[in-house]
């Protein structure tokens, strides 16, 4: 099915199941431990072996030799596969850094060997005996130092945009801001580490793994191993969090596959936690410069957003300027990204790539500008709202209610009680409120599904879509139930298996809307198969109560299916509605913080998010996404930072003791409000992504609240107490 015209009324609009607060259908299997995650697949008849990876101890250079004599003699060892043994492997399409093979070292903790033994403990102990000689080379590890050498990246990354004459308008503007902001490298820090089990059967491989994108992994694993894609079967039905860290094939999969081949037995490989931050991808640090010029009335006349980030050769920039192309009006504008070469681990997508760090900067800048103008920051944003793409004014937004989010949020949060900067004290706490706009584009991806109806009247959905904790199982069941006129308990959902139709996968907040649209398309096919079989006119047919009704004729779905059952399969493809109409999601984040006047510790007291993101398919799972994202925003604002050792080129705090993410005590009551809306331009579901929207802008709202509390403006994230201390009032 191609979605190329705005949706009209369709069966989803009945909203008997879709839009209802249905509890997770996979919840019980998770809370009772029956959901099987990658490392836990266990067939008692199979003698699994264990692979323990070895990471490079240098950041750049060559592996000269690997001495594994002692390893091979260690108890339980079944084999060793080294990067020199396997030689150069072809790199997957989605990988920037190579995962394994050959002598070149591109980054710290790059996999250089895997030691295989009968038990995990034996493999780990033996791995410590490996001796590796390296020729280290000088690398570039410091973004600040490399900033001047940064270049405009490839045109495919859309590095630049412009409209009007920024320079002239900025020079002419009576009120201007020109400020620099920085965001640090960050790690996904998902709960479940990267893990895979590989089992070969002749020249075919089955891989149980933890992947957000089944087809990308399958393709890239085949490429890396030099085999045909058809020979790869991938299974990833449950994923313990990904946040972008499991979008692309990772070393655990390659090592497990090569190890299993080597010893002729299935092998399990998990990346040890301290290896994850440097072995895998991370969100790259940025340096951002924002200039805004406005009339005294507050109308923006000029806006410029530039961003510098770094990556390995062949990599891309962190697209931190993207939202600035669309969020606010202003006739004269430029955005630009610059990319430096860095020999740190690969930078790539993490939790709302682009918008998350971009809004961290832009939404502080808006707060600063409002202050210069003597305006309320919400009024300033509302004044500069736009209903069209400001770079291409002939292109409207499909639906945009940023103003509604800000107004409702202000009212619910008690924004009118926001104190004057630096004036409100409660005991030792300096108290302040902050606001930021949330903005994230609504992406769509082709997505396929197969829907089966059996003689019991059970509907089974099969798609290689993944559920990374987001609720995919549940919203897919709701979609199929709505389309086929059954209750959710009559729907079985099978995900994460490469034998199923290729779906959107999970990422970029495109999963929910795209994958349910694919299920919609397959259900349309199944409905057609049913009506064709029954010989009834498909225009006046109703699917409800487990029955097919046409005029006076009523047939149960079970009966319609018959002993052989019926199948509908289709892929949702997307026409050019995303080109003619800008599709985005919007929100307002409101935060109240307390800052300890003596120590500078910031503790969040209240958080509210108001989201406008099309139809909400399930308010429970959507809320869960948004509060999780707000928590990530709190981490980004207050603590998350991979600290770079710029001498040796690695992230120093590479475990969960050193890389702090929020704990429960950091997160206060969180409130989430969804505006009641539908967007017929987005899909037949009239829904949009919401998961990443919840993160976009949160950190800036916190930063602005800290400013309101203390009068200290910090432009370098995370806002740890050492950045406030010197400017706080004297207490001694």
């Amino acid at each position, binding site marked *: 099915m191609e979605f190329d015209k705005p949706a009209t009324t369709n069966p989803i609009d009945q909203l008997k199941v879709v839009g209802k607060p249905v509890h997770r259908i996979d919840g019980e299997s998770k809370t009772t431990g029956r959901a099987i995650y990658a490392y836990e697949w266990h067939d008692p008849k199979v003698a699994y072996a264990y692979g323990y990876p070895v990471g490079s*101890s240098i950041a750049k250079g060559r592996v000269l030799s690997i001495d594994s004599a002692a390893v091979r003699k260690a*108890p339980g060892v079944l084999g060793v596969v080294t990067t020199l043994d396997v030689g150069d492997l072809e790199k997957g399409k989605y990988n920037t850094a190579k995962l394994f093979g050959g002598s070149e070292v591109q980054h710290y903790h790059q996999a250089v060997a895997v030691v295989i033994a009968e038990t995990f*403990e034996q493999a*780990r*102990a033996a791995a*410590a005996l490996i001796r590796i000689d390296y020729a280290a080379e000088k690398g570039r590890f410091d973004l600040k130092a490399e900033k001047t050498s940064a270049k405009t990246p490839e045109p495919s990354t859309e590095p630049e945009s412009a409209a009007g004459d920024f320079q002239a308008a900025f020079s002419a503007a009576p009120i201007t801001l020109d400020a620099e902001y920085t965001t640090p490298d960050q790690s996904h820090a998902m709960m479940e580490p990267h893990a895979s089990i590989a089992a070969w059967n002749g020249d075919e491989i089955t891989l149980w793994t933890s992947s957000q994108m089944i087809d990308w992994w399958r393709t890239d694993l085949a490429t890396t191993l030099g085999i045909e894609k058809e020979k790869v079967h991938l299974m990833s039905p449950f994923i313990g969090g990904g946040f972008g860290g499991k979008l692309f094939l990772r070393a655990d999969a390659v090592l497990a596959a090569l190890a299993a081949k080597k010893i002729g037995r299935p092998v399990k490989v998990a990346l040890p936690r*301290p290896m994850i931050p440097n072995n895998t991808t991370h969100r790259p640090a940025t340096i951002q410069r924002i200039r805004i010029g406005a009339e005294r009335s507050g109308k923006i006349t000029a806006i410029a957003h530039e961003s510098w980030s770094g990556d390995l050769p062949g990599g891309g920039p962190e697209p931190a300027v993207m939202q600035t192309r669309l969020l606010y009006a202003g006739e004269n504008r430029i955005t630009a990204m610059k990319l430096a070469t860095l020999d740190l681990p690969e930078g790539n997508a993490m939790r709302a790539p682009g918008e998350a760090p971009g809004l961290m900067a832009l939404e502080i800048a808006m707060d600063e500008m409002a202050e210069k103008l003597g305006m309320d920051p919400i009024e300033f944003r509302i004044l500069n709202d736009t209903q069209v793409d400001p770079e291409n004014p002939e292109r409207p937004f499909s639906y945009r209610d940023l103003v509604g989010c800000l107004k409702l949020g202000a009212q619910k949060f008690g924004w009118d009680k926001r104190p004057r900067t630096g004036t409100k004290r409660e005991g*030792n706490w300096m108290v302040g409120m902050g606001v930021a706009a949330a903005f994230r584009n609504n992406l769509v991806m082709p997505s396929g599904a197969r829907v089966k109806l059996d003689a019991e009247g059970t509907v089974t959905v099969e798609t290689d879509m993944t559920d990374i904790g987001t609720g995919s199982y549940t919203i897919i069941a709701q979609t199929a139930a709505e389309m086929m006129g059954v209750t959710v308990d009559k729907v079985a959902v099978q995900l994460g298996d490469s034998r199923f139709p290729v779906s959107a996968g999970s990422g970029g907040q495109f999963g929910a809307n795209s994958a349910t649209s694919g299920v919609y398309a397959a259900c349309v096919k199944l409905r057609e198969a049913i009506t064709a079989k029954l010989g009834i006119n498909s225009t006046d047919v109703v699917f409800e109560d487990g029955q097919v009704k046409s005029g006076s004729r009523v047939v149960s779905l079970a009966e319609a299916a018959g002993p052989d059952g019926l199948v509908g399969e289709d892929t949702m493809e997307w026409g050019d509605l995303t080109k003619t109409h800008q599709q985005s999601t919007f929100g307002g984040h409101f935060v109240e913080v307390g800052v*300890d006047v*003596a*120590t*500078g*510790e910031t*503790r969040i007291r209240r958080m509210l998010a108001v989201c406008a993101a099309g139809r909400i398919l399930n308010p429970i799972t959507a809320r869960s996404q948004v509060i999780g994202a707000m928590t990530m925003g709190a981490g980004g604002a*207050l*603590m998350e930072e991979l*600290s*770079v*050792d710029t*001498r*040796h080129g690695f992230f*120093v*705090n*590479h*475990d969960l*003791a*050193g890389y*702090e993410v*929020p*704990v*429960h*005590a*950091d997160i206060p009551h969180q409130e989430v409000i969804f505006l009641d809306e539908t967007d017929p331009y987005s899909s037949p579901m009239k829904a949009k992504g919401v998961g990443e929207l919840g993160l976009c802008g949160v950190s800036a709202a916190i930063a602005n609240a800290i400013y309101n509390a203390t009068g200290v403006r910090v432009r370098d994230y995370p806002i*740890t*107490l*050492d950045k406030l*201390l*010197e400017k*706080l009032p004297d*207490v*001694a």
Partner: protein
Amino acid sequence: MRAFSYERATSVEAAAKAAARNPEAKFIAGGTNILDLMKLEIEQPSHLIDVNGLGLDTIEKTSDGGLRIGAFVRNTDLAANETVRRDYALLSRALVAGASGQLRNKATTAGNLLQRTRCPYFYDPNQPCNKRQPGSGCSAIGGFTRQLGVVGVSDACIATHPSDMAVAMRALDAVVETTGATGEKRAIPIADLHRLPGDTPHIETVLERGELITGVVLPKPAGGKHIYRKVRDRASYAFALVSVGAVVHPDGTGSIAIGGIAPKPWRIEAAESELPKGARTASAILLADARPTEHNRFKVDLVERTLGAVLAEARG
């Protein structure tokens, strides 16, 4: 983790003797620190002597009105003990500010005192570290040092001792009781237990090989206000950037120990007579020899400000 042999000690003397006999032996109590370090091969004992079965898990009054805490009293039990909460509230507060509930259920008094540093370079076996591998150099100096020490440090090592409990015990004038390999007993004032790194940062305490901590004795209650203020980047489950353990008397005098800044709980008695003058004077004495790095210079200011807040709270 290297393969190791394991025994359960049957008596204090036998445990000490067994440990002295085998230079590669280590005691294991709660195991919350040593096992983590063994997995990374930072500790590589070939033999573990499990001391959990030795008893020494009671809290009893001493004849002179003090308190004897068994070496293997769990942190949770110690923090919850009624006498501790009433008479040594500082200790209870410091304990519950540390680690997590699950860890405190396992962690012991002795193990907590002897837990090793959290320097991130110490934790990465690829990086040179004088504490882990004597003479290999210190990677932290010149690197990422935000968490590390500002005072009592040396050119060989700038790591801190991370314990919260030990800070409280230092302010409370605790005495550590031990039994050595030949059965001799020692009472070591906690001030003397941990050594400064000098050029041998791998030697962290004055304990001899095989010497077993059997308990900690607190003097009779000192009264005063007991405050433990732990400053950190997140609200829970993080090591201190700076912590202040304080017993403050109505006349403004008291005892103060600082955590998060030094290779041992940091206390300078001379600073305490200046307490009535305020935090600035006292912290100037505490940090007179400070040699912070660019990353952790803020700790100097933070000590003064946190101490100021603690003294203000004590004045109440």
